[in-house]
């Protein structure tokens, strides 16, 4: 039997993976992954660019480590789930537009546009996300801004998609996977007539198999990368983009060389506040009462590593200098320019006794790459805000 090659129709796809029962379940899982990703991403964005109403707690000290770990791992899990979902609904791509009915045609067009937007945005977020964690930038746009903007597009398009599909999805989710006659097959209402005769048990087990494979692939993807933030998986994950290695046992994102750091021989930490100023020599800093705390460096890229940091609590240091406390503090680096050369400690972080101006890491003097002569280490904040090579503390009004 020979047939002329033609563009396939939805009815040509007869595999059980294209059932609406499968698509609805994958959609639900993917929705959960995207919701987790969006919520944790929004948190991370707000911690770095806090609006007036936003406060981020200082406890538990691992909070950001967890939220950002969830962010990258739910994104990783979404990769196989998105591909499985797209495969499940692939036949719909070939649905012919109702050309003779203008009203239905308009609806069809709007749906197609919103789906295209959703797929564009979903791919964009996942692809740029995995490239960013590997710090590989084969593009010219500014990643944090673009990733944030497209996250809104993705979530908006997802809500539009849910609004449109809600009745079908609800019906499909309430039906058992082994249902004899799926409520509405993806291929169109008359698929069973067009497709080859297939016994129901085979179709049901085929649906289950496809869902199991998709969930399994998501699990393997998470297992293969979770070592970046889950300590006992470090040696298991072959594709962890970071490990707890680096100078003095902790990875480094930006080296002293890359930041162009030169520490003057007569280095003085400058502490300023409205109406006052004081310089403190490094030797005097080391002579102040020190505190050691186990705090994580938790990066926006999802990797994290804990270390024992020793230094002076910022609260004590300000008190020692005679500066007011209980206010936000701007921390500036010896690094001039650069995106992360300054950060603002909100008042609750500046007043926390665990917020340290660290001089030592794991018992050793900070190496240049870890921020010698001194660096900020505040509980529960992203690594990019833990300013290194600190030169100045500025108590804000």
């Amino acid at each position, binding site marked *: 039997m020979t047939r002329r090659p033609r563009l396939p129709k939805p009815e040509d796809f007869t595999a059980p993976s294209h059932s609406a029962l499968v698509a609805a379940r994958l959609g639900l899982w993917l929705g959960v992954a995207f919701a987790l990703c969006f919520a944790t991403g929004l948190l991370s964005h707000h911690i770095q660019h806090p609006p007036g109403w936003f406060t981020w707690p200082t406890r538990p000290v691992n909070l950001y480590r967890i939220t950002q770990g969830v962010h990258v791992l739910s994104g990783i899990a979404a990769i196989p789930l998105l591909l499985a979902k797209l495969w499940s609904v692939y036949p719909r791509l070939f649905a012919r537009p109702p050309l003779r009915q203008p009203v239905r045609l308009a609806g069809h067009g709007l749906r197609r546009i919103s789906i295209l937007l959703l797929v564009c945005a979903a791919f964009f977020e996942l692809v*740029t996300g995995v490239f960013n964690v590997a710090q590989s930038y084969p593009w010219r746009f500014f990643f944090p801004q673009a990733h944030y903007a497209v996250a809104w597009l993705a979530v908006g398009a997802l809500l539009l998609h849910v609004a449109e599909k809600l009745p079908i999805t609800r019906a499909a989710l309430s039906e058992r996977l082994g249902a004899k006659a799926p409520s509405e097959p993806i291929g169109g209402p008359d698929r069973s007539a067009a497709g080859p005769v297939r016994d129901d048990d085979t179709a049901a087990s085929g649906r289950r198999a496809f869902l199991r494979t998709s969930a399994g692939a998501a699990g393997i993807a998470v297992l293969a990368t979770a070592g970046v933030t889950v300590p006992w998986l470090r040696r298991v994950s072959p594709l*962890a983009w970071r490990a707890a290695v680096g100078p003095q046992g902790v990875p*480094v994102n930006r080296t002293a060389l890359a930041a162009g750091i030169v520490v003057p021989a007569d280095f003085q930490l400058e502490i300023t506040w409205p109406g006052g100023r004081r310089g403190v020599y490094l030797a005097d800093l080391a002579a102040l009462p020190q505190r050691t705390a186990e705090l994580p460096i938790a990066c926006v890229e999802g990797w994290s590593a804990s270390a024992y940091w020793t230094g002076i609590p910022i609260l004590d240091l300000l008190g020692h200098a005679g500066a007011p406390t209980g206010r936000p503090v701007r921390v500036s680096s010896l690094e001039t320019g650069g995106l992360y050369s300054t950060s603002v400690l909100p008042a609750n972080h500046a007043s926390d006794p665990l917020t340290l101006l660290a001089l030592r890491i794991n018992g050793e003097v900070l190496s240049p790459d870890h921020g010698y002569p001194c660096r900020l280490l505040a509980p529960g904040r992203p690594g990019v805000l833990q300013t290194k090579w600190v030169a100045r503390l500025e108590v804000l009004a």
Partner: protein
Amino acid sequence: MRTVRLLLLLLGASAVAYGGWLLYPQIDTTLPWLVGGPLLHDALVAPLVALAGLTLSRLVTDPVRRYWITAGLVATGTLLLIAVPLTWRPASAPPNPGLQDRDYPLELTTALAFLWIVIMIILILIHVLSRRPAGRSADDRG
């Protein structure tokens, strides 16, 4: 349900509008990366997957065996996709101690080898288990 759908529609449209407004300043550099995903998927990846599925269904007719081979292929594809940025990084990036600290091609090969050994073992087990009852019944009769 109608109210919920309407609400979702409104929320969704506002989020899309806000995202579009945020993205607008970078639209020229991001557009190829936005459109690239679906284009590559729909025109290249999905047809290739379809072809692979058709070929596999001709080669392996037993559904249980095909299930495990498919699972292996899907997991392999997923791991390969995640590995792309780790193995392909522009050399111009600044040095970064502790980043990409391992030999990724080697680790990936080892993981894939492990995966396929597990799948092989499962396939052999299925083969052995599916033969045993038949063999035993033959013995009983004899």
